[in-house]
């Protein structure tokens, strides 16, 4: 595992390397409080195996004049992805950095057959169970009811297709759990759409219904046609290859009894 690095290269005082869903990133910055916050926040996600993508935070050098491949503005913080450089500007705090990282990953994962999903992921018998739904659907409840150490994330899951197998990764983007994220992965057992109900029940879904479940819960910020087309292709593939279910569940741990093995 790499430790956070302190360098004076390229005009930045500090840099921090992290890997989320096997996407290696290097955050370069001069803001000491932000560096400390990022180091603490992403401490569990520092095992980088490949050459990272450099992301320059609040660079004083003007951006290149070329049109960005992807751009997004979030509450004054601006992400611009050029072919030769990635820039996050106007990042005033850890919250803004976290938001731009999610937005950047949602775009970068397209080339890795992956996507970010509003979902809790729990590992059981070496396989990842993905529980999705909007706020209030029960993601954090499911995480709370699961054994300690088995929760990869209670808020935002990362799914990638690798060598023909869908795997789920933990992310540092946590919700109510507010615990350290788990930087590990497991093959996906199934996607479960959470519905709170008086009794536990699972109903298998057709691929079109799985796609219908995924689409509103995917984190995606590009309004560009080609990116949207790629995302739809990836989600359709996931909906066809991953088993999906409606999971009606009571707010206790007995729901595990009805899940398919």
């Amino acid at each position, binding site marked *: 595992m790499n430790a956070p690095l302190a360098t004076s290269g390229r005009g930045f005082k500090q840099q921090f390397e992290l890997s989320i869903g096997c996407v290696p990133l290097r955050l370069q910055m001069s803001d000491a409080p932000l560096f400390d916050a990022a180091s603490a926040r992403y401490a569990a996600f520092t095992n980088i195996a490949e050459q990272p993508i450099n992301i320059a935070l609040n660079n004083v050098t003007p951006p290149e004049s070329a049109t960005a491949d992807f751009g997004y503005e979030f509450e004054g913080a601006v992400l611009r992805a050029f072919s030769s450089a990635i820039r996050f500007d106007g990042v005033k705090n850890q919250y803004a950095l976290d938001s731009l990282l999610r937005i950047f990953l949602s775009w970068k994962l397209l080339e890795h057959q992956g996507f970010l999903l509003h979902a809790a992921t729990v590992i059981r018998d070496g396989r990842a169970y993905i529980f999705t739904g909007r706020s209030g659907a029960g993601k954090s409840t499911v995480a709370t009811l699961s054994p300690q150490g088995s929760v990869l994330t209670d808020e935002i899951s990362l799914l990638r297709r690798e060598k023909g197998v869908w795997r789920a990764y933990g992310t540092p983007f946590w919700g109510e759990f507010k615990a350290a994220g788990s930087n590990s992965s497991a093959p996906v057992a199934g996607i479960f759409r959470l519905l709170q109900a008086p009794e536990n029940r699972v109903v298998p879904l*057709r*691929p*079109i219904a799985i*796609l*219908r479940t995924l*689409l*509103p819960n995917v984190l*995606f910020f*590009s*309004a*560009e*046609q080609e*990116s*949207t*087309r790629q*995302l*739809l*292709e990836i989600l*359709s593939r996931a*909906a*066809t290859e991953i088993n999906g279910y409606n999971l009606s569940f009571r707010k206790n741990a007995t729901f595990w009894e009805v899940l398919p093995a």
Partner: protein
Amino acid sequence: MSTPASVTWQKNPALAWREIDDETVIISPNDSVMHELNDTGSFLWKNIDGKKSAVELAELLAENYEVTPDIALSDTQALLHEMSSRKLVVTVPATGGVSP
């Protein structure tokens, strides 16, 4: 439906779409709205190519779905009207350009 029968139709080029489970899912990148077309709608969608009019599309529908030409034309026009109102399809003017 006020569109003349001779007018040809094409898919809105700004959209992303994909077939799954014999249905077609269409996404508008600008607003991320998802549209779904059933079996008949998907059949029409596949055949909307910028060259065919409602009449020609209806002929294909009648051949493939065992409906009378009148019903096929009525269904086709209704579907085109619905898809047009959702900006999924646009008409192709005689000049070859695309009307908004």
